[in-house]
C-alpha cells in the first residue's frame, strides 16, 4: 500500500473519466490544488461536474479547465472573477448551481460523514429553499439540504506524511479538509512530504484514512487575488 506518487499526472492516472464529479479544495486562489488541477487538465476528461467554492480566475486554478471546456457544471458559492466563466455561463455551455458557502461546506462535510441530509436555517425564505423541504423545529423554520460526495477530491495541504496524515497552513485550510473526507478517491498535493512520526498526532487535521494518493509539490506556485497592505509606520 504505497500512497505516494511521483507527480500529479501519475497520481491521477487511471482514475479520471468523463462525466465525473470532482471536488476541488481552496478558497479564491488560496489553498487550491494547482498541480492536480493541471494534471486534470492534461487528462482531457470532459463534461465534469466540479464542486468548488470558487472557479479560479482567468488562467489560474479552475480557470485553466474553463479554457479547455472540460467543466460542464459548477457547484459553488461565488464565481465570476473570470471573463471566461461569465462567457461560458451566459452562452449556456456551463451550468451553475449556487449554494450558500456554509451550506456548501456542510453538504461536503455531511457527504464525508455518511449524513445524507440535514436541516439549516440558511436560505429559508429565499430562492435557495425553492423545491426543498422546509420544516419547523422548535418554532423556527429550516430547509433540508443534501450531503454530497465526489468521485475524486483534489486537495492541497501544507504537510503530509506518507501515511496520508495532513496538516494545513493558515487560511489555506478552507474547504480542503471536508473535501478530503468526501471523495471516493482523495488525491492530495503536499508542500512538505515527511515520514510518519514527524507530525504531531494531536495536530493532524486529516487522518490518513481519507487519503488514497499523495504527491509532493515542493515549490507550489501561490497567487494573491487581492494584495492589500498597510504602510510601515516610520520610527
Amino acid at each position: 500500500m504505497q500512497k505516494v506518487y511521483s507527480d500529479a499526472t501519475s497520481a491521477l492516472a487511471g482514475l479520471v473519466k468523463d462525466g465525473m464529479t470532482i471536488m476541488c479544495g481552496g478558497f479564491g486562489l488560496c489553498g487550491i490544488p494547482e498541480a492536480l488541477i493541471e494534471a486534470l487538465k492534461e487528462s482531457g476528461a470532459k463534461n465534469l461536474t466540479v464542486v468548488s467554492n470558487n472557479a479560479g480566475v482567468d488562467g489560474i486554478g479552475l480557470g485553466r479547465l474553463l479554457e479547455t471546456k472540460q467543466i460542464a457544471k459548477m457547484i459553488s458559492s461565488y464565481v465570476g472573477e473570470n471573463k471566461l466563466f461569465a462567457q461560458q455561463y451566459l452562452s449556456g455551455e456551463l451550468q451553475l448551481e449556487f449554494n450558500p458557502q456554509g451550506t456548501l461546506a456542510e453538504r461536503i462535510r455531511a457527504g464525508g460523514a455518511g449524513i445524507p441530509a440535514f436541516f439549516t436555517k440558511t436560505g429559508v425564505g429565499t430562492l435557495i429553499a425553492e423545491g426543498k423541504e422546509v420544516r419547523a423545529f422548535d418554532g423556527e423554520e429550516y430547509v433540508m439540504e443534501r450531503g454530497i460526495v465526489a468521485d475524486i477530491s483534489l486537495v492541497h495541504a501544507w504537510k503530509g506524511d506518507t501515511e496520508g496524515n495532513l496538516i494545513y497552513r493558515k487560511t489555506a485550510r478552507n474547504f480542503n479538509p471536508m473535501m478530503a473526507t468526501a471523495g471516493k478517491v482523495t488525491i492530495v498535493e503536499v508542500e512538505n512530504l515527511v515520514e510518519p512520526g514527524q507530525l504531531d498526532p494531536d495536530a493532524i487535521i486529516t487522518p490518513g484514512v481519507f487519503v488514497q494518493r499523495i504527491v509532493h509539490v515542493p515549490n507550489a506556485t501561490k497567487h494573491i487575488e487581492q494584495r492589500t497592505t498597510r504602510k510601515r509606520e516610520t520610527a
Partner: protein
Amino acid sequence: MAWTRDQMAARAAQELRDGFYVNLGIGIPTLVSNFIPPGMKVSLQSENGMLGMGPFPYEGEEDPDLINAGKQTITELPTTSYFSSADSFAMIRGGHIDLSILGAMQVAENGDLANWMIPGKMVKGMGGAMDLVAGVKKVVVVMDHVAKAKDGTIEKKLLRRCTLPLTGARVVDMVISDMAVFTIDKHGLGDMKLIELAPGVTLEDVRANTEAHFEVALAKAA
C-alpha cells in the same frame, strides 16, 4: 450633510461590545475595525476559516496562505485560530458570532434583506452572506440610504417589501444609512423604528427617501 462612509462606520462601531466576536462584510463594514474603542476587545471572524483577524500586512509581508473572506491579504494576531470552512460556518450557523455588519441593496421594514443578485445581470453568488444573516445573533446593515443611478435617478432601498431576491427573510436588526439609524424587531412584529438622524438631516428628508413604514422613536429632536 449626511454621514460620510467613515461616520457610518463609526456609528456601526457603537454596536460593538467588549468581548464581542464580529464578522465584517466588505466595503464600509470593513472600516468599522478602525473605530473599535480603545480598551475594548473585539475579535474579528473571517468566514473562510479564521478567528482573530489582524490588519493588512506591511508591504512585502503578504502571505498567499493568509487571506480574509474578501480574498485580501491580512495578518494574524496572538489570539488567532484557523479552522476549516465547515467549522467556520458551524460557528456562524450555531449562533456563536455576536454581530455581523454588512452592506445591502435593499432592506424591508420586516427585516428582509437583499444583497446578492439582480435578476437579468450576471450573478456572482451569495458567498457566505446567507449563512451570516441567518446565523449571527445580531445583523447590522450599513448602506447608502438610496441608490443613485448614473442618469441621476434615485431608487429607494428601504422598502415595504424587497423587490430583489432575498438573502434572508426577517434577518436585519438595524440599518445604518448615511441619513439615519433604524431598528427592526425582526423576531416580533417586524416593526421598524427610526432612532437617530444624521446631523442636518430632517425627518422629512428621511420620509421622502424611504418607502418602508417606520415609527419615529428619536431620543432627541433632530
